[in-house]
């Protein structure tokens, strides 16, 4: 077998990033965060760690899980070099960054989160849509705790609700993933959702992934095939006020908000396109779940090239202003903010992310369908000079189509809310480690 070098395959010869972290002025005791490949990290707790290996066993007993977080002040460097003061969640095993670490827990586990406040203003922790997940307030250098039962499986957002949306906007937010106690369909396909919330459509789709004679090449979805994309925006004027210790009026922020930076998992543009926590990669036929969360104040219209994506689940919301679409309605009358698994799995190339929306989208990793049949996209080594059909991977972009957020610092297109994803031909399976 030909030895393939991954570096060549990816064709990325950009700069190697220097050390990510340095420390700023010691008097402020703030971490200085230079993003680059300081990727968003996921921490697995309790029964959830098992599932990554086993793919969803129904037998594990509920565990008691303790999660320690702290709220910190940091200086973070934006893509154009601008330094912005932020508030950030961290865990003892991660650096402080925005968003905070992804917390993976298992449905039914007893979760205790203790928040230590290492800033000069009070903070608390809340998870909208999760019963009982609202802590007391921690004064500076104090702690607060909250215990709750991990809810039905899905994607959740933890945040500081104080002076909403101010503390969340300054950076105090992160994602909690709840894995199902049993996510398998009746036919046995693994899904990210609790059996009780399965719609016929979800079961049909996930069953279909494992059937090689149908629309898809036959790889079932695997729980390791998922990414988190947290969308956020930064208006540095408010961050500067917070740094100076000035109080920020929530309604003033709502009224005057004018974002200058637009990020996915805290990074944007060139950095997001090279961040392993963001860039989806895989072979044709390996479906990839993307958990989208909008922690910010702006609406977004994420658009993906190369494949349409399935909208699997969203945030249950009651109709307001008469806005409703049948496909947005949950199966049952779910409480506001809970996970609504879709009855109608719409295949989109643009999806809507309202503020605080959580939406699970799935890239089916189909062969990009509009490549001419005659151009049988496959892989060959060495590559012919004049052809693209022997190239791997094909690389596509995902970006906000509310294009204003493709900017950074008032220009610099496309250094905003944009990233890449990659797809390898199926015949390279087993030959390339990706």
């Amino acid at each position, binding site marked *: 077998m030909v030895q393939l070098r991954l570096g060549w395959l990816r064709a*990325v010869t*950009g700069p190697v990033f220097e050390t990510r972290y340095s420390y700023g002025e010691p008097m402020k005791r703030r971490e200085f965060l230079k993003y680059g490949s300081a990727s968003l990290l996921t921490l697995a707790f309790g029964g959830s760690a098992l599932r990554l290996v086993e793919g969803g066993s129904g037998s594990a007993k509920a565990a008691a899980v303790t999660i320690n977080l702290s709220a910190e002040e940091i200086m973070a460097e934006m893509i154009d070099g601008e330094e912005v003061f932020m508030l950030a969640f961290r865990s003892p095993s991660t650096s402080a960054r925005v968003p905070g670490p992804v917390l993976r827990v298992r449905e039914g586990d007893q979760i205790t989160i203790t928040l230590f406040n290492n800033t000069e203003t009070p903070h608390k922790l809340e998870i909208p849509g999760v019963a009982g997940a609202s802590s007391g307030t921690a004064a500076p250098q104090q702690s607060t705790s909250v215990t709750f039962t991990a809810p039905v499986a899905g994607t959740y957002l933890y945040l500081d609700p104080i002076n909403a949306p101010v503390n969340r906007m300054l950076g105090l937010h992160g994602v909690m993933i709840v894995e199902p106690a049993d996510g398998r369909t009746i036919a046995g396909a693994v899904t990210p959702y609790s059996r009780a919330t399965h719609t016929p*459509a*979800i079961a*049909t*789709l996930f069953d*279909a992934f494992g059937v090689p004679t149908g629309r898809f090449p036959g790889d079932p979805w695997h729980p390791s095939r998922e990414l988190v994309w947290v969308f956020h925006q930064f208006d540095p004027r408010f961050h500067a006020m917070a740094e100076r210790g000035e109080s920020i009026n929530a309604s003033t922020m*709502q009224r005057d908000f004018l*974002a200058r930076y637009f990020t996915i998992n805290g990074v944007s*543009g060139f950095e997001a*396109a090279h961040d392993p926590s963001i860039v989806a990669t895989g072979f044709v036929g390996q479906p990839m779940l993307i958990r989208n969360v909008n922690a910010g104040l*702006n*609406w*977004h*219209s994420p*658009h993906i*090239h*190369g*494949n*349409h994506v399935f909208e699997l689940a969203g945030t249950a919301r009651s109709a307001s202003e*008469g*806005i*409703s*679409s*049948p*496909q947005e309605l949950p199966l049952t009358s779910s409480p506001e903010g809970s996970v609504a698994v879709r009855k109608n*799995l719409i295949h*989109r*190339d*643009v999806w*809507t992310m309202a503020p605080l929306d959580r939406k699970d989208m799935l890239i089916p990793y189909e062969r*990009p*369908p*509009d*490549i*001419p*049949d005659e*151009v049988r996209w496959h892989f060959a080594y060495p590559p012919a*000079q*004049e*052809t*693209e059909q022997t*190239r791997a991977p094909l*690389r*596509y*972009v995902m970006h*906000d*189509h*509310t*294009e*204003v957020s493709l*900017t950074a*610092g*008032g*220009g*610099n*297109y*496309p*250094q905003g809310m944009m990233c*890449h994803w990659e797809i390898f031909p199926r015949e390279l399976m087993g030959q390339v480690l990706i």
Partner: protein
Amino acid sequence: MATIDFSQTGVTGPLTFDSFGCKTFEQAQPDTPDRIAPTQSFRRRVHFDATRKMWDGKTVAFWSFEDPTTKVKASFPAPTLRMRQGELVHSTVETRKGTHTIHHHGIEPTTVNDGVGHVSFEVNGSYTYQMQPTVAGTFLYHCHKNTVLHFEMGMYGFLIVDPPPAPLPAGVPAGSKQCFVGGPWYQAEAAWVFDDVDARWHNLDFDAGLCGDDVGLNRFEPKYFLVNGQPYNTKTKTGAVRSKVKRGQKILLRLLNGAYSQLLLSMPNGPAMEVVSIDGRPLGTGGAGLPGGLSSPWSQPFALSGGQKIVLSSAGRYDVLVSVPATASVGTVYKLGAEFRHFTSFEARNRGTPYEGVVHTEIEVT
């Protein structure tokens, strides 16, 4: 024409901070890799010549594409690319000044045919994009260079994929068209693209902001609102685009948000309406038996009621089949409302002023 050296493109060339926007890969007359003889060809030439006089007397310039094989100049929006599913399509961009691309939005070919400069190349000359659309539906095409600006400037148009010809089922009137393979039939059609315009942006240079300048492209304050390039008078609520349909017939609305505002649509009262397709993908089992088997048994078409409001995000498409009752009177006008909602406050733009971002379109029963 020149064979592409992939190392001089985003395919295998070095991706750096600068290669993303400021110094993007550029090609003049590159050959299309893996070129095959087309069964359908289009040419689209960049122009900077369109203007629109707004209701308050102000004139705004637009850039777009025109079809050099016709005598129509300065088209805005760009002329529709209309093709059939399964055709081998060549779509050629011809630039005039500066670099541009065409991204056929929702069509999914290889990377170099996708029109995104920093992962392939921008074009300073001409390039023929090659694709073979698999699914019938509503798409768009637009320039993907400094997209935040070039899309706002008007460099967009519809791209419609029709299904292969099929025999008319019993009871379907002659001349009807089918939405997609196995899908419903319609007798009239309206393709409506909604746009919002910030006149300040329309005086900027092609490359504004690309190399680090703060040109305020994070600040978008539209005062003008257009449907199909036609300015709507937000003061008098006139200037609506109108489409016609006979009573007892079906009109397919192809709705596209070409704005940066979130579009809040209010569906008309009177006719029965069904969403049959979203983003160029049929809902339900239409398309079964296609190459690639793009059937979607996990989705289904759904009805909309009169007055119902739906959100259409930037570049999103809804295909709504409107059935006009046989009992409707000739001359009846159904109105579809569209509010341009601010992407932060979700309020209608300029609410309470003559520049309020609230427009409507009309379907007239004939």
